[in-house]
């Protein structure tokens, strides 16, 4: 069996694909996490309508598979006159999914900040906005970091869904090599190992982050 012998020849194209995957993941997180934070803050709003609306959006966002969100943006939207490139559709779709999921993670983090912290800030005369910005959000974010890393790993894996919209990411590259060489097993295994080479060390990082956090707060 020549499973491994051809690996060097696959590597350049696969690495290019991996670059695209990483890029999509980072962009999605960079857009999605601030979005998630806004949703998390909004979910604590005093206005009941705002609260219900946001919780509704988040539940729908979390209930829908990322794959379906992706298809909506890539195949669905052109019907309403807005055509996105496969890159843009992938980033927007995964960012939306990120926002929905991380809003729950961050909401948990914000709620974990003891009430005494808010009271202390209030007693010091800090207004609601400053209290949120300087006291509650930084602490809530720290609490959320291990879960956020865990989620980032899942989003990186989810970039493989962009294969369905013909984005030249890692899986697409592997598949196209497979379809010309018919050596699917070899190239797909290599691609899988490349995903694992990033996700496995990253998940160790989660464990370390948890330990460090336990020391500090």
């Amino acid at each position, binding site marked *: *069996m020549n499973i491994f012998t051809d690996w060097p020849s696959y590597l350049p194209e696969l690495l290019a694909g991996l670059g695209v995957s990483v890029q999509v993941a980072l962009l999605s997180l960079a857009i999605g996490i601030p979005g998630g934070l806004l949703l998390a803050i909004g979910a604590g709003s005093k206005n009941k309508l705002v609260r219900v609306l946001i919780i509704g959006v988040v*539940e*729908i966002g*979390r*209930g*829908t*598979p*990322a*794959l*379906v*969100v992706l*298809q*909506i943006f890539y*195949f*669905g*939207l*052109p*019907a*309403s006159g807005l055509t996105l490139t496969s890159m843009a559709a992938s980033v927007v779709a995964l960012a939306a999914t990120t926002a929905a999921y991380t809003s729950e993670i961050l909401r948990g983090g914000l709620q974990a900040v003891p009430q005494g912290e808010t009271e202390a800030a209030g007693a010091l005369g800090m207004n609601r906005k400053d209290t949120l910005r300087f006291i509650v959000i930084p602490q809530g974010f720290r609490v959320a970091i291990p879960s956020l890393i865990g989620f980032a790993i899942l989003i990186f*894996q*989810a970039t*493989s*869904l962009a*294969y*369905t919209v013909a984005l030249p990411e890692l*899986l697409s590259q*592997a*598949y196209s090599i*497979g379809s010309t060489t*018919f*050596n*699917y*097993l*070899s190239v*797909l*295994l290599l*691609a*899988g*190992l490349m*995903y*694992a080479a990033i*996700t*496995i060390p990253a*998940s160790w990082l989660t464990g370390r982050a948890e330990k460090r956090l336990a020391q500090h707060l």
Partner: protein
Amino acid sequence: MDIFLTVLQGVPMTIGLTVSALAIGAVGGIPLALGRRSQIPALRFLAVSLIEILRGIPPIVWLFIIYFGLGTALPQLDPLTSAIVGLGVISCAYMAEIYRGGLSAVAQGQWEASEALGMGRQSVLTFIIGPQVFRVSVPAAASYAIGLIKDSSVAYTIGVTEIVYFANDQSRQSSDALGPFFIAALVYVIMTIPCAWATRALDARLRMRVAR
């Protein structure tokens, strides 16, 4: 309305796929979880490596490896079998981790009490710890199952006729490209949200019967 009914045709496949994969995971997760806690280092290493590699590679890649990859070496499996096997082995790894969490949640005192009664390790595990582990694992397993309903949508990429497959088909055939996907999203939301509620209620009830 026609589109809605067509997309609904995928529901039995989505459910069947999810349930089959979950069943494989619920059973296969047990040896993996025990392997992780084994006193034999080699066994422990093997279990950890398997779990990490299964969880570290995206589900869609596993399906491709099984459907397209193994297909070139062995007689090709049909899409549904490939999807069940793929999602099933991934579920083994996730369930193993869930059981591991459950094992550490059961109070040390339960082991000690059983040993003091003169029970062997095997029977402690089977009659005392095991049942409690399953109970504490229910909430995590349920939320994993909810995730799996959504993750099973990747099976469409190898041609399994589940929800997204029909949505895609409709989107391409009808003049309405967007509608079928919204319907698919709606169907998933309708399937997952009640599951989440049921889990919370079940969790509260099972928690009462576990020693911590």
